[in-house]
């Protein structure tokens, strides 16, 4: 009878130890990391905006190419006077220069705005992901030494990519 009591007391004791163990494990800080470049590259919005930017840039380049072609055609024409190229040539060359500068600035501005939009969304989704998974910290590894070593088990890059794309597409 006494042995039975001991068995029960021991089992309860073991269960309490086990519960404390599980509790402290859950309370432990959970830190993970992601590969920043990989997440950025795989983000659907980034792909969409890159395609959009490439299309706009190639249209702008086509406009410049066509002006360049007209300038070349003018200069290679047999009646082109190199000493006195004429008003048409000068005005076309000026328009070309202005357009080229304007397109360069627009491309840069647009590219910066898109980067801003992508990072704004990524930051929000990473925050949401961290909260949902109760992570204390999420580090961004970019291969430039801000994270020198972390176990691969702590790499959430692939899981995060699928999470952010679902969130973005509202799936």
């Amino acid at each position, binding site marked *: 009878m006494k042995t039975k009591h001991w068995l029960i007391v021991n089992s309860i004791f073991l269960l309490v130890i086990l519960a404390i163990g599980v509790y402290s494990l859950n309370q432990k800080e959970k830190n993970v990391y992601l590969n920043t470049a990989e997440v950025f590259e795989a983000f659907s919005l980034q792909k*969409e905006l890159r395609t959009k930017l490439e299309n706009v840039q190639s249209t702008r380049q086509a406009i410049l190419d066509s002006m360049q072609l007209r300038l070349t055609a003018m200069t290679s024409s047999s009646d082109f006077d190199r000493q006195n190229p004429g008003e048409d040539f000068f005005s076309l060359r000026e328009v070309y220069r202005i357009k080229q500068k304007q397109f360069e600035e627009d491309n840069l501005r647009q590219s910066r705005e898109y980067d*801003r*939009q*992508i990072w*704004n*969304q990524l*930051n*929000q989704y990473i925050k949401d992901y961290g909260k949902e998974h109760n992570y204390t910290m999420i580090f961004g590894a970019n291969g430039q030494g801000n994270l020198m070593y972390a176990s691969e088990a702590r790499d959430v890059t692939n899981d995060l990519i699928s999470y952010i794309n679902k969130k973005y597409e*509202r799936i």
Partner: protein
Amino acid sequence: MKGYSIVLILVFPFVLTNCRQEQVNSEQYLQYLDKNWEKLTDSREMNGIVYQARFLPNDYRIIERFGREINDQKLQSERQNLSDFQYFQIRLKARTGNIMEYNTSESENPALRQHYYTHQFTKDLALIDGKDTLYCEAHQFVPNHGISPWISVLAAFKVSESKTTEKRIVINDHIFHNGKVILKIPASAISQIPQLTLDKL
């Protein structure tokens, strides 16, 4: 084969009654919507800005405008008037402070923001309805006058040819630099809206 037919006979009336839209009077219709606005609404927060889209059934807009005592003739003619369009209420607010002043700079003052939402917001709104992408045909901006945290826009889109499908409102936000924000209203929430029938009054 005989067993299969019996199952069909038993199941068919059940399917038929469940597929049919419930018919309700204006009072019941509004009660249903009051209880179910959440299903017809989607919202999400992005960097301190809350975006919200709500599907507004045409019958609701008619009752809202002409009152619960609207007669059947008026209801039918208004339905006809609105039948080419579907309407959404799109609302935005800042998590803290007045959205019209949120993160403003000299080049981006509240008056310019107000001008954008009043006159140019249409070009940054789209609706993905089934396989169709529809652009906003018209919108009406309701300013907050610094009182309500929300600014509200009533947006009209052409009715898609596809049957009742999931509706995805796309807001291309370059005011707060958040880019494309998608809000989703499930098809089931729209198909479950009961049918307003004034005969039941």
